């Protein structure tokens, strides 16, 4: 789009990864004179907004400077030797697959920082909160920007400790258990993943993702690939999460503070699926082909399981928690993403990447909305919210109700919104999977997954029905029910970008697909660009 010299691009990418880290250290130090603000708490929260804002700005400039004519080429690459003994290189770079995720991460973190500036979750000092958010941002951005297997592992691990503390210190009920479940599950997964990464690195003699992807698995025997895919796949599947390794997710989401949930769903889950696309598909295609039908089967079970769990939670009298419901719906949505990846066809993988971004936007929005609802009513329990006849959000807080309904229909995949294209492309991919994969099996998966969209629509509409509709409380009733505040200015500021992007991605999917498609084609076939 606009010409920016390569060295500036390199600097920007390095800044995006390292900037939040420096910001995190700075957040722990006392504020310098002149920047003290009204109170130390306010100063440090403002610091968080500024740092994440700067990173978002850098990411946007990077996106503008990105050569959109060659999205399959690695751009803004830096390649410095760091630990020669382990052959670890600081190899950064972005292509059409990582760029959207990078921007999404920067955007969501900025919105979270902005939201917390006005609405800090209950808990200890905001100083540590801001520092942890920044470390988390650095870890996720690094995951999407690094091109070295061991560095990828390092970035993957970097998010664990901050997320643990965010849940354990600023979370709601049962936060300690949920935090433990989160970190022990994901660590076990990622250590197993490390074994797979080491196996690939030692057998092929390099940890460089670009070189390995160019090779397209030719340097690795099938048996090595099968073992590596199994080990790495387990690690990534825990993170994604894939049924039946998902059980940490609902707990973590229910206990996490609003901002934590948004980042967990919007960004952290994407690290798992990104790993599938970036590492397993191009580097170990033979091993992947062995496991693709199983992956697809698990994905489809996840779709149905997630939907049924949501339906059960949405039922009257089930004491369903809205946050838990959205978490289970995430399991279903990630099922579509995994199905798309498992087809190993360009259509399916593109669909998966699209659904990835869409899920980040929509679920991020939904968690924000539910968090706002909780702040106002003090509960996310569907039964106590809706009581007998419905919560009547449309009547009491029309804008909030409207946004919630928007998020719900976007999530169920209404055509014209972001959620639609990803799921449709994933299903298309399953209709015609890559050569060597059993077509009848994938047709069955497709049919079941399509049924899953129906279930998704059902529970989302039930939720809308119960939360948004219902009779207005009578003004004369005693005692008068508290009036729900409608959307505040800062909330609007934090949510508008998500809504706008959801509509944009729904109406103009080519903008995103144009970026991912060439990169996907290259990853699936290997070779130099």
């Amino acid at each position, binding site marked *: 789009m606009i010409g920016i010299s390569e060295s500036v691009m390199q600097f920007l990418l390095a800044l995006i990864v390292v900037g939040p880290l420096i910001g995190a250290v700075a957040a722990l130090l006392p504020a310098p004179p002149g920047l003290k603000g009204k109170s130390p708490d306010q100063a440090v929260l403002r610091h968080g907004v500024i740092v994440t804002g700067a990173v978002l700005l850098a990411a946007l400039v990077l996106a503008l400077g990105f050569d959109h004519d060659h999205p399959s080429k690695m751009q803004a690459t830096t390649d410095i030797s760091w630990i020669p003994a382990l052959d670890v290189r600081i190899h950064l770079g972005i292509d059409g697959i990582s760029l959207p995720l990078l921007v999404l991460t920067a955007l969501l973190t900025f919105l979270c920082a902005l939201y917390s500036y006005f609405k800090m979750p209950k808990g200890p000092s905001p100083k*540590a909160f801001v520092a942890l958010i920044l470390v988390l941002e650095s870890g996720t951005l690094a995951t999407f920007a690094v091109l070295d297997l061991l560095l990828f592992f390092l970035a993957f691990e970097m998010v664990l400790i901050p997320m643990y503390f965010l849940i354990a210190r600023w979370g709601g009920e049962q936060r300690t258990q949920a935090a433990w479940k989160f*970190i022990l599950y994901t660590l076990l997964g990622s250590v197993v993943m490390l074994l797979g990464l080491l196996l690939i690195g030692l057998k092929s003699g390099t940890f460089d993702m670009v070189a390995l992807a160019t090779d397209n698995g030719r340097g690795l025997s099938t048996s090595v690939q099968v073992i590596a895919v199994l080990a790495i796949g387990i690690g990534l599947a825990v993170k994604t999460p894939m049924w039946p390794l998902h059980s940490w997710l609902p707990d973590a989401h229910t206990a996490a503070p609003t901002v934590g949930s948004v980042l967990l769903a919007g960004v952290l889950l994407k690290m798992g699926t990104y790993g599938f696309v970036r590492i397993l598909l191009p580097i170990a295609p033979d091993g992947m082909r062995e496991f693709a039908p199983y992956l697809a089967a698990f994905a489809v079970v996840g779709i149905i399981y997630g939907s049924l769990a949501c339906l059960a939670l949405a039922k009257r009298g089930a004491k369903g928690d809205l946050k838990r419901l959205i978490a289970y719906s995430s399991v279903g949505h990630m099922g579509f993403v995994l199905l798309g990846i498992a087809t190993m066809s360009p259509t399916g993988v593109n669909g998966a990447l699209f659904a990835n971004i869409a899920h980040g936007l929509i679920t991020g929005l939904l968690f924000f909305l539910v968090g706002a609802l909780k702040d106002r009513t003090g509960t996310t329990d569907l039964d106590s919210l809706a009581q007998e006849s419905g919560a009547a959000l449309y009547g009491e807080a029309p804008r909030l109700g409207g946004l919630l309904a928007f998020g719900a229909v976007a999530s169920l995949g209404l055509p014209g919104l972001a959620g639609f294209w990803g799921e449709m492309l994933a299903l298309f991919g399953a209709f015609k999977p890559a050569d060597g994969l059993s077509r009848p099996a994938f047709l069955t998966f497709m049919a079941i997954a399509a049924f899953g969209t129906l279930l998704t629509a059902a529970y989302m509409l039930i939720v809308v029905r119960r939360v948004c509709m219902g009779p207005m409380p009578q003004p004369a009733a005693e005692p008068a029910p508290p009036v729900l505040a409608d959307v505040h200015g800062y909330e609007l500021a934090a949510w508008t970008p998500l809504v706008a992007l959801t509509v944009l991605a729904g109406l103009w999917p080519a903008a995103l697909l144009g970026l991912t498609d060439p990169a996907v084609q290259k990853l699936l076939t290997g070779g130099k660009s």
Partner: protein
Amino acid sequence: MAGLVVLVADLFVGDGKKAVLGWISVAGLAAAALALLPLLDDDRSTFCLTGGGTHACSYTADRFTLVIQLLVLGGALLAALLSMSTLKDSRGDLPAGEYWFLLLSSAAGAALLPASRDLATLIVALEVASLPAFALVGLRHGDKRSSEAALKFFLSSVTATAVSLMGVSFVYAATGTLHLTEIATKLQEVDGQLDTLARTGVALTLVGFAFKVAAVPFHFWVPDTYVGAPLPVAAYLSVVGKAVGFTGLILVTVVAFPSYADVWGPALAVLAALTMTAGNVAALRQQSTRAYSAVRLLAWSSVGQAGYLLVPIAAAGYADNEAAAEKAVGSTVAYALMYAAVNLGAFAVAALVGRTQRLNRVSDYRGLYARNPLAALVLAFFLLCLAGLPPGIIGLFAKVTVFSAAVDAGLGWLAVVTAVNVVIALYYYLQWTALLFRAPEGEPVAHRAPAPLTAAIALTAVLGIALSGAPQLVLRFADTGLF
């Protein structure tokens, strides 16, 4: 090493000002460490066999030796820094002159060990390092726990040494030499009748060193000894004592018995798996309110860490060529260096907290961040390094080298066991870390840390952070041959 000898002699004479003795010891250790520098450029050997066309030496200063000596002297230096404030606090419970003498002579033995290249010198060095340690553990006057710990330590250690001496004599009987390199060549041509003898000898020799590294089933002495000993001595044992054991193990296995790799390789692999599991599970079961639970936890965790350290040595047994074996051994050395810096740091913070909280329970660390933010942050960093998670980057990469040694050697099952153990270990490390940042109970008491203790904590923290930024500093040993 002459500096050490002089210093030890000096201590006999100068028994006047107690505090000065401490500084002299620290200076001596630092000087000894500096004396390693001129040796860096080339390999030197002395006490060599001459004639007969063979070249075998008893004392060799190659890169492996120097790195381990650096580790030993650095560890002893930090332990000495910790000791200063402990001695000052003890007000005569601990006799200062004897204390310094014992610490230094033990360090001298530990420094001799990595350089020795024959079995006799090796055992002598091992005993020089161990005997003063027994006395150090039991040094506290009128403390029953202390003497009991010393006795336990002494009895189990002596048994192990005796067994190991028997092994040495078997090996000698089978090969007719004590020099490691000679043994390596002669073991290949042991005639059939003596084969069983040689095999038994190899196995028995390893027992003595397995005791030193506190490998299962020789690990029971660890928690009681650490708790009974003065804290700096526990720190010293956990790092220098371990380093001694590992060096001996490496020298014996990789240098002397490479032809019997099919005996000790699998044995060490099983030992590694058992050791880390036993250590971590025991650490997991520690109750945070029990007296001295912080030291107990560190003791058990050090058993677990010993298990990780054994993994690459076991992997060396499966290596098909010498270079691969040396690389695997390098992983152990790199891991040991990381572990030394970080574990001593954790002990230093424990010593700091122990000054106000006599019982040193894990629950006493609650709210440390509010009382002493820097100490809490540093301890959190050390614990995460031990757990191997960012921000403890050096801990993470040290674990990666261990894993890669195991994967490279085809020890898939051991790698998986290690992976599970890493998760178990994370639980108790992170639990402790989280406790540091909890809201404190009661009013925080301002407390000034003594200068030597602060120096020790700062030194280890700087080391840990510098290594996290440039892991290559220690990890390069995992890449190149050390011998």
